């Protein structure tokens, strides 16, 4: 998300494209510029139309539906109810419960995945050979379909026949019911997400480590810094942009928690793992309360937008020490 000011073309000014330099007067120059700009828009147009048709239109439509008493199973005209659905959402204890579940999940994701991801990235970076191979092997959980991941963990968490409980029994550590235990179900999902996405964190941080200029690391070494100091004072500040990207991507993805809930717990036991997205799904596709579910969707969209904006602002501050590896292809 870093913009490359050096190569950036504003379409005007001395840094304009070179074909313009050969053009004589300002009039034809403006003509060329607008031709180029028009060409750019033509290339982009099909995408914009498709994106608008499939995201902006549905959003506006959802805003419309969210102001109506829209029950799919009840035919007839949909009554306009203004903000009633939104007010109902804010007063719905299940909404607050699912928000708490979602935030707990996001928190768990961050607390576990960032340190583990960084640790693994540092270990990978120390490997003298075969770094790519090991990185790709580690990454297998990330690239599998959520439904395949869900199946694997249904097997592993199985109370009676699962290998996990077998190992715990060998160690005399008890036989938890995992996804059927109201207190363990959400941590169990957090662990599945940890398993699925920590390698992703590792991969990004590892890419960041590799792009650091080796001189800087060596200089820090020669200074007699301990490995911890190198990590804290050199790596972390330099990696800040990439850490920011990794955390933003993970937070936003975690906030959308749905797939593994659907496959592993269906929101249960009871409502213990009902995330915001899953609760919205139930309202929309089990009870067909389209008006209410749309209002819930819009509220989530607002929440996620605010969250993304805040996170972007936090990570845009320049790293400590003012060194930004602009030319290092981060």
């Amino acid at each position, binding site marked *: 998300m870093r913009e490359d000011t050096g190569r950036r073309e504003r379409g005007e000014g001395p840094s304009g494209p070179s074909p313009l330099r050969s053009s004589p007067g300002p009039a034809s120059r403006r003509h060329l510029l607008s031709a180029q700009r028009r060409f750019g828009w033509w290339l982009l147009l099909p995408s914009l139309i498709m994106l608008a048709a499939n995201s902006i239109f549905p959003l506006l439509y959802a805003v419309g539906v969210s102001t109506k008493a829209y029950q799919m199973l009840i035919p007839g005209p949909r009554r306009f109810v203004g903000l009633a659905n939104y007010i109902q959402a804010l007063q719905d204890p299940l909404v607050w419960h699912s928000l708490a579940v979602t935030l707990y999940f996001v928190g768990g994701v961050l607390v576990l995945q960032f340190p583990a991801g960084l640790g693994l990235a540092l270990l990978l970076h120390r490997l*003298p050979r075969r770094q790519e191979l090991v990185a790709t092997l580690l990454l297998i959980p990330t690239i599998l*379909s959520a439904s395949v991941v869900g199946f*694997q963990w249904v097997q592993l968490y199985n109370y009676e026949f*699962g290998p996990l409980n077998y190992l715990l029994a060998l160690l005399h550590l008890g036989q938890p019911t995992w996804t059927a235990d109201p207190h363990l179900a959400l941590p169990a999902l957090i662990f599945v997400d940890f398993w699925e996405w920590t390698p992703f964190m590792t991969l990004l941080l590892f890419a960041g480590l590799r792009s650091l200029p080796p001189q800087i*690391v060596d200089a820090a070494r020669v200074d007699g810094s301990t490995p911890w100091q190198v990590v804290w004072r050199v790596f972390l500040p330099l990696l800040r942009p990439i850490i920011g990207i990794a955390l933003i*991507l993970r937070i936003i993805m975690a*906030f959308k928690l749905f797939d593994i809930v659907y496959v592993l717990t269906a929101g249960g036991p009871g409502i213990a793992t009902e995330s915001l997205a899953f609760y919205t799904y139930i309202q929309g596709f089990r009870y067909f309360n389209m008006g209410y579910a*749309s209002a819930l969707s819009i509220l989530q969209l607002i929440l996620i937008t605010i969250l993304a904006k805040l996170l972007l602002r936090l990570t845009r501050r320049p790293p400590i020490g003012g060194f930004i590896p602009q030319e290092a292809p981060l």
Partner: protein
Amino acid sequence: MRPRHGIHLADVGSYTLLGIALIVFLFPVYWMLATSLKPPGEWLTRPPVFWPSTIHWENFTDALIKWGGLKGLRDSLIVASLSTAISMVVGVPAAYSLGRYRTGGENLSFIILSVLFMPPVAVAIPMYLFWSRLGLIDTYTALVGQYTVFNIPFIAWVLKSFFEDIPREMEESAVVNGATRWRAFWEIAVPLARPSIVAVTLLAFIFSWNEFFFAVILTRARVTTLPFILPTLMEGHNVLWGDIAAIATLGAVPVVVLAFLLQRYLVRGLSFGTVRER
């Protein structure tokens, strides 16, 4: 970062830790593979069977024929390849436009990226109503259309960063020498970006192949992709673990193979082009 000479204690420690990590992250995958090859008597046992006594290929034939695996494979393949193809045709010019001409500025780029950040449920309800009004629920069209829309911003962002990395001089001199901008794009920039275009194509294919949420919402019984049938089998016949594991394996193998082919591009692709490796 390399040890200068000899084996340090720290190295032993770090190799051990990495080894443990590899076991933790690969064991569930191994377990799926092992189950898919176990004979029925070893699917549900206590203690569990860690190594199949014989290789029981019948799980795969049953999965393919009895449990709709063949249909799942076919539908996944159709949906993933069609949506990848359409979104590449639309997305590559868009990526070029954003990367080369900065069309619409950084703001437009971010708006396009933000489509990827939208919670799928927020889109799901209106899109469900939209497709059902058109009578297209449970058709290839709906799934292909939906996946295409999610692939486009992905392709645009990842390829934009690749196009930015290609020096522009060749295209410029072509334009100076009278080539149209379209030819500069199509005959110079695209061939130069070919390896990254191939990589992005495969990544878009992986995303469509894996997609689960919209498959659940937009399909019922006629279009059944592999990720869609897996949970339905788990509900219906949860004793047939070997067969289900075979289906899951069918869903996993192509993706893993592609990931190994794409090693060099994984960082950029998975971070939507926001992280550039050297």
